[in-house]
């Protein structure tokens, strides 16, 4: 018998899945499809999650809009104060862009135009959104007034190069270790559990410092800082890329080990829980081999782990941002750090916006993925009888 045609799922009231006349059903399917499309549980799911994230993004952007305007005093003044000619600069505060009084006035004008503080609030808000849609995040004070969007875009790439592989690799490794540990002997099991808990809860950037101390200083295997050796000029040659990979190794490792810990802890608990569930016992009664039972438990324990992606991503972004600062890896973290030191609010806001969008988009993608994987979300109706 042929596999169930997908479009039959478009009719949630369908009582039978293999109705006799396929033609009749097909026509009805198309007609009902339009309306029933939105009644389909998965579509409803997509729409509700999408709206939620949209709401969150708007909320986040609005907060970004208000923050510099809620500070005591004029944000432009705050930014420029340490850089005013004649004033002693704070540690790391003075921007190299500010040299003479004429430059200073020019910069001040540009910043005031960006913040638009002379206009009424709702107009500022409108302009804010207009700019966002154009991709204009303002000028970066610390980077000689280059557009923030460009700078942040470049940094984003560096951060993603760290975050995405760590996320994916740690997921598979961590789940594997967690599942194996859960079904091993008690001693090994507990050791792995508490070890992973330690790795999961430690500050990843602290572990990064330890790795740096052990592997860079003591063993001399890896470099301390930066994304390439200073004497090399960035290019696409293999040797340069290898050099970058060499600099990439330590931050990657630090984040990876910590993330593996996070997944292991979760999977360990889930696996123990699944191994004791009723369906495993029943399958045992049906004569399943122990091996297959473990496979079943593992597969089912993984499902809720997918929902953990959201939390892990949020946490990982935070840890990555700081680890970047420790290693001088030019991602969003280092950028934010620089922005804070130079009191460059447009840059800081831009970095924050992009970070938040990345996290929220990632969460949305994860929700969709999970919806596709878990059959309980894909199908929604219950047979009668």
């Amino acid at each position, binding site marked *: 018998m042929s596999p169930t045609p997908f479009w039959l799922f478009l009719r949630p009231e369908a009582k039978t899945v293999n109705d006799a006349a396929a033609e009749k059903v097909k026509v009805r399917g198309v007609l009902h499809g339009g309306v029933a499309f939105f009644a389909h549980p998965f579509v409803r799911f997509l729409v509700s999650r999408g709206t*939620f994230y949209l709401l969150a993004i708007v909320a986040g952007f609005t907060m970004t809009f208000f923050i*510099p305007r809620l500070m005591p005093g004029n944000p432009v003044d705050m930014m420029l104060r340490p850089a005013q000619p004649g004033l002693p600069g704070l540690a790391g505060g003075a921007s190299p862009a500010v040299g003479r009084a004429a430059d200073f006035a020019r910069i001040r004008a540009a910043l005031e135009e960006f913040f638009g503080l002379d206009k009424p609030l709702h107009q500022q808000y409108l302009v804010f959104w207009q700019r966002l849609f154009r991709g204009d995040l303002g000028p970066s004070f610390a980077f000689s007034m280059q557009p923030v969007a460009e700078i942040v875009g470049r940094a984003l790439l560096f951060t993603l190069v760290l975050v995405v592989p760590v996320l994916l690799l740690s997921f598979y490794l961590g789940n594997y270790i967690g599942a194996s540990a859960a079904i091993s002997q008690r001693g090994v099991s507990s050791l792995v559990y508490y070890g992973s808990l330690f790795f999961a*809860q430690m*500050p990843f950037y*602290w572990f990064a410092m330890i790795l740096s*101390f052990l592997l860079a200083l003591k063993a001399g295997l890896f470099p301390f800082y930066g994304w390439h050796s200073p004497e090399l000029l960035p290019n696409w040659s293999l040797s340069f890329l290898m050099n970058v990979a060499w600099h990439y190794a330590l931050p990657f490792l630090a984040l990876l080990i910590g993330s593996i810990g996070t997944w292991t802890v979760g999977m360990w608990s889930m696996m123990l829980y699944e191994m004791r569930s009723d369906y495993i016992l029943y399958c045992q009664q049906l004569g399943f081999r122990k091996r297959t039972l473990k496979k079943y438990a593992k597969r089912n324990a993984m499902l809720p782990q997918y929902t953990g992606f959201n939390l892990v991503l949020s946490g990982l972004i935070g840890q990555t941002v700081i680890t970047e600062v420790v290693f001088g890896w030019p991602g969003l973290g280092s950028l934010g750090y620089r922005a804070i030191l130079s009191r460059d609010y447009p840059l800081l806001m831009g970095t924050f916006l992009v970070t*938040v969008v990345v996290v929220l988009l990632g969460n949305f993608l994860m929700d969709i993925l999970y919806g596709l994987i878990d059959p309980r979300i894909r199908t929604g109706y219950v047979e009668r009888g």
Partner: protein
Amino acid sequence: MWRRLVRDGQFLMALGVVGLIVGVGVLGPRFVRNPHAFVWLPNQPPSRQFLLGTDPFGRDVLARLVVGIRTSLLVGVYAGLIGVALGVTVGLVSGYMKGVAGETLNLLTNVVMVFPVLPVLIILAAIFERRSLVLVGTIIGVVSWPWAARCIRAQVLSLREREFVRLAKISGDRHVKIAFLEIMPYMLAYIVMVFVLMLGGAIGAEAGISMIGLGPTDAVSLGNLLFWAMVHEATRVGHWWTFLPPGLVLTLLTVFSLIMHKRMDQIFNPRLRTW
């Protein structure tokens, strides 16, 4: 219920470790040298006189560590109090009120929760030039409350349908009275649990923003110690005594407060146990 808790081996051990660290933080500063004073040659490795050596300014690292524990704990406590206050209120109301009020609060909780904690902390802390302990604690609390709210809400939802609440409703008590007098006693254990969780998280969060330079200004905290170690490139010059201890204490504090929380959860919320 509480009696079972104090007999639980794992909980007691975790409590012991946390208690020890807290004890050091509370009483320790009395017994150590001045953490701000330049007491010796800089960059000395640990010796019998200076158990954790000195930092690049010649300050006693052990003294700084002990004072740092106290500072971090204080920030954690402030954050925990604010987080629990906000979280319990929102959780209680959103769990108890059916309809629009409850649903809106729940939506609010979920929206705030979906934001990555550290970036939001950074952006909020960057507003202020000078940040006191209370300020930092407040900011952290204001960002971390959704988790507490969610836990509390789940409990309230399950308690709401229980008999004693229905009885109170029938006898005409007003909603607020019911919420606080009937439900709260059961919630007390849960609130303590949530507080422990928030404390652990807040200490970690404080470390995070201190590392980026936005921690409490002019205060010595664990995160601050790590920040200075980073700025002075301690890993490059091999001064492990400046960054290893603070991070270790931090991790131990977070790990064991988490274990405490987990044991409390297992005992107050018996579910399918994994024996």
